[in-house]
């Protein structure tokens, strides 16, 4: 939405450059505020939170027409995560591997959301609405342990519910058992059940497949729309 607004005022490359500067700044400020404003949580919890903010802000800033290709924006977000986490939250030598893995997760999740938004744009949805829809989908999926938790307790489907949530993917990368953290333990029954977090490698592969599928579909829809427009003109 930030990107869409910027694109309207200053289309093309200038909007992308503007978003590329603003987004990391927003994420950095949020990370510092979180660390100092929300005590009582360890480093890994804060890294997870920053990764989520990075994905969300990055998607809201998505410029829709980004020079540098499909990978440019996700890679920018990954770089933001990689720079912000040690700078704003701190990282020892041993934890840099966790930060790097999280940065990769940010890039892949960002790619999925951007691909989904691109598909909606190909379906003639405005870039702003497409971003908002992607973010809404992310939020609903992330909250699956809350609204599907009671069902999981009764049905034994804890692993499935946890796998559906992108939070679980990021938490597995952050090596943080978020379902047993203070807030989720109180609000979801999953923390008291037997479960496994999704394997990060499998989660990453799923992101790549989803992002690629969205892009391919977007291209097909776009080609069909362009062809229909040509036919209409010729007619």
């Amino acid at each position, binding site marked *: 939405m930030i990107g869409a607004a910027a694109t309207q005022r200053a289309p093309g490359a200038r909007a992308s450059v503007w978003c590329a500067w603003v987004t990391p700044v927003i994420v950095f400020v949020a990370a510092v505020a979180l660390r100092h404003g929300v*005590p*009582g*949580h*360890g*480093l*890994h*919890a804060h890294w997870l939170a920053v990764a989520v903010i990075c994905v969300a802000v990055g998607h809201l800033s998505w410029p829709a027409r980004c020079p540098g290709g499909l990978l440019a924006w996700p890679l920018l977000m990954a770089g933001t995560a990689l720079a912000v986490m040690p700078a704003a939250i701190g990282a020892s030598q041993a934890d840099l591997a966790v930060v790097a893995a999280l940065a990769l997760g940010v890039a892949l999740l960002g790619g999925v959301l951007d691909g989904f938004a691109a598909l909606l744009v190909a379906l003639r949805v405005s870039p702003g609405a497409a971003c908002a829809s992607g973010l809404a989908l992310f939020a609903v999926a992330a909250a699956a342990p809350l609204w599907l938790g009671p069902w999981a*307790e009764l049905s*034994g489907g804890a692993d499935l519910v946890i796998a559906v949530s992108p939070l679980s993917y990021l938490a597995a990368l952050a*090596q*943080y*058992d978020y379902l*047993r*953290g*203070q807030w989720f*333990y*109180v609000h979801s*029954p999953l923390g*008291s*059940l*037997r479960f*496994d*977090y999704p394997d990060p490698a499998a989660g990453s592969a799923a992101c790549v497949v989803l992002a690629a599928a969205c892009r391919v579909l977007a291209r097909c829809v776009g080609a069909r729309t362009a062809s229909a427009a040509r036919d209409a003109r010729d007619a």
Partner: protein
Amino acid sequence: MRPLRVLALCAAVLLAPLQAHAADPVMDPDLRAKAKRATDEGLRFLRSVQGEDGSWLGSVGVTALALRAFLESHRGYDESDGAFITRPVAFLLSKVNDDGSISESIQNRNYNTATAIFALKATGNPTYATVIAGAQKFLTGLQIDEGEGYARDHKYYGGIGYGGDERPDLSNQYLALEALSKTALDPKDPVWEKALVFVNRTQNRSESNDQAWAGNDGGFTYMPGYSPYGGTASYGGMTHAGLISLIYAGVDRSDPRVQAAYDWIRANYTLDENPGVKGRHGLFYYFTAFAKSMSAVGEAEVVDVANQRHNWRNDLARKLLSLQAPDGTWVNSDSQRWWEGVKELVTARSVIALNLAVR
């Protein structure tokens, strides 16, 4: 006189078994025999489902509990008895990590490490001393204190959680303290004093709990300011966990905190449910914590607030015997919480509880 003497002698001979029966204040002999048979059946089940690698479910925690169940049983199993003991030991040793934790995953590292070193210590094998020492260091390192940037007045101070960045709670706390006590951590180690700061903050006793929410029924809740069963309500599993924590941390039995917890137990004495809990959540966790705390207190009987005397060993044995399935297993068929739908885990816990009762 002679016939009288003979009569008296005969009476003494005939009445001696009854006297012995009546004189045994610890446990009813019939129940003791049945409880021992029940543990044998439970252990038979565990052996039948043991993995090739000696583990149960590939889980350090479940394996350690099952191993403890075998080692503490009336049969006196040890490593000389065969692979069903040596393989789970080897499995646990294979899961020792560089940081001293013993866990197959990042989840439940405190629980896994604590139960593992308890079991390793129970083998009596001194060669595991180095592993145990490393695990002790890991557990004490989990304690939240100035090292993590927490001031003493923070509600989390002194607490031990699941083993990552998660919040501390009394359940993880008591398991860690039990393991550290069993493995003879130095009584002067500061972990004990700091642990008491946290334990105090989970007790509903305003005289020793500096938190504004503290009530005064003497029982314990899950975390400072939170009970899964509403507000800050005390409940059975945590009250026994809190009592165990106080005792292992070196608090004298005459201390008012111990007395208050024991009074809560007296006022809520039951084995028909986990008192204060909705449904049958954590029922077997309660039975195990009950057995541990009653063993630690050392009294054969509990006199409740209505002045009824309860032989806790007999009561626990009767209850567990009534819940054992024909295949020798126990399971919580009404609740999956805290893994109580897992037969291997619940059977191991039940055998541990019965072992403590018949000891």
